[in-house]
């Protein structure tokens, strides 16, 4: 649906749902997903309806994705980085996912 106004200049590699893709350095995660044609980045926890980035400025919270194992991050507020792991979200996060996010970040749950 979205098309870049200017051609990409500096591509970097990230993964989206474990698939390696090229995205433009300097893009936010939300912008990168839109450019890849992934308009819906999550489904809601209650009704399961699809949602995608809307305001692109940190207000609407519709752009939530999992980034490097940590769920519910606003994709429009985070810049892509080489090697970043981006995952689309399906429904609510389970507590075990929260637990594994702790391991990924090298913190043990309980040290906050």
């Amino acid at each position, binding site marked *: 649906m979205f098309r870049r106004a200017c051609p990409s200049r500096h591509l970097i590699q990230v993964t989206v749902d474990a698939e390696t893709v090229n995205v433009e350095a300097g893009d936010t995660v939300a912008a990168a997903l839109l450019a890849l044609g992934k308009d819906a980045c999550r489904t809601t926890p209650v009704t399961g309806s699809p949602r995608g980035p809307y305001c692109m400025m940190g207000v609407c919270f519709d752009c939530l994705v999992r980034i490097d194992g940590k769920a519910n991050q606003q994709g429009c507020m985070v810049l892509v980085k080489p090697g970043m792991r981006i995952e689309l979200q399906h429904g609510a996060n389970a507590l075990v996912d929260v637990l594994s996010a702790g391991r990924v970040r090298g913190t043990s749950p*309980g040290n906050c």
Partner: protein
Amino acid sequence: MTDDAFDFAIVGGGLVGLAIAYGLVRGNQRVVILDEGDNALRASRGNFGLVWVQGKGQGLPAYSSWTQLSARLWPEFAQMLRDDTGVDVALEQKGGFQICLSEAEMRVRVDAVRQLMIQPGFETYEIRTLDRHQLQGYYPGIGPGVVGGSYSALDGHLNPLKLFWALHLATQERGAAYRPNAPVTRITRDASRFVLACKESKAVLAQRVVLAAGLDNARLAPMLDMDLPVRPQRGQILVLERLRRFMDRPIVNLRQTDEGTVLIGDSQEEAGLDDRTSTTIAATLADRAVRTFPVLANARVVRTWGALRVMSPDGFPIYDRSRTQPGAFGATCHSGVTLAAAHALALAPRVIAGDLGDMLAPFAPARFQSARRSMEYV
């Protein structure tokens, strides 16, 4: 219908006023609800949503009985609201816990439960004391610092915003008139009717009046020769991201809503009419929650809010009937979610009857008078 045809004017459209109004319209009364606007201080939209029994009534056993009655009425009340409005308030009464994070807390808890139960006239029910191992059976993820806790099968929770919404819909569905942005400034009496002067709108006439104006009850009550000496007490709540259901039953300061959101609460501060939040309280709330479930350290806080409880001097509800102004009633409590069912189905019929009856007599404000008199000399 003209304005002077109202049987009842309810001052205040919070949970207390709306629950009573609902009971009145079900009793075929013609009711008008006078309320403030959207930015009013309103405990009813900032509360924690517990339908809670355990531990209540130390010093006033009748309060436990009244609370237990409401908890028993809740399933029927929730069903009525669903039938009238289609709104499911997500009531769950599968029991609830209080958690102790040290041996000292555990001793205090056990002692408090014992003191509560041995009061003369206390309507007993079971509050079970659980050790750490027993708690793990309910919540495998509890932290190493959890020593034990207590459990009552009577406790539960619901979605308080859905309750608030359902009561708005149900009262109006059954014919109550709702007037927002109509704060009552003064109440007088003209022959047989009450005259409620409202800011920026026409005065309202009613045969009878119920004060349910939350914190403003303290100012309005003396106009009708009643006494509702309430003060604000702030509570703050932390809201975590929605998680897949991991808590089957609520803990008094930590619960997961029907939609998956985790709420952390139970702070109590004397902060006047200030309903803001503070990081010190947020940190304390978060610390307790994380010591209860260490894994929550990695969950995200998405929102915090503060709200003002409507607190009486002894923490118990006040139900008053004016002796010199027949037809004037007042109601206030700090557990308006828990007591909503009793307010609609037990208090409202008494109000229609014009006499609060024996069961509600212990809640009359006369209990404050001796205390007040001695304070005047301090």
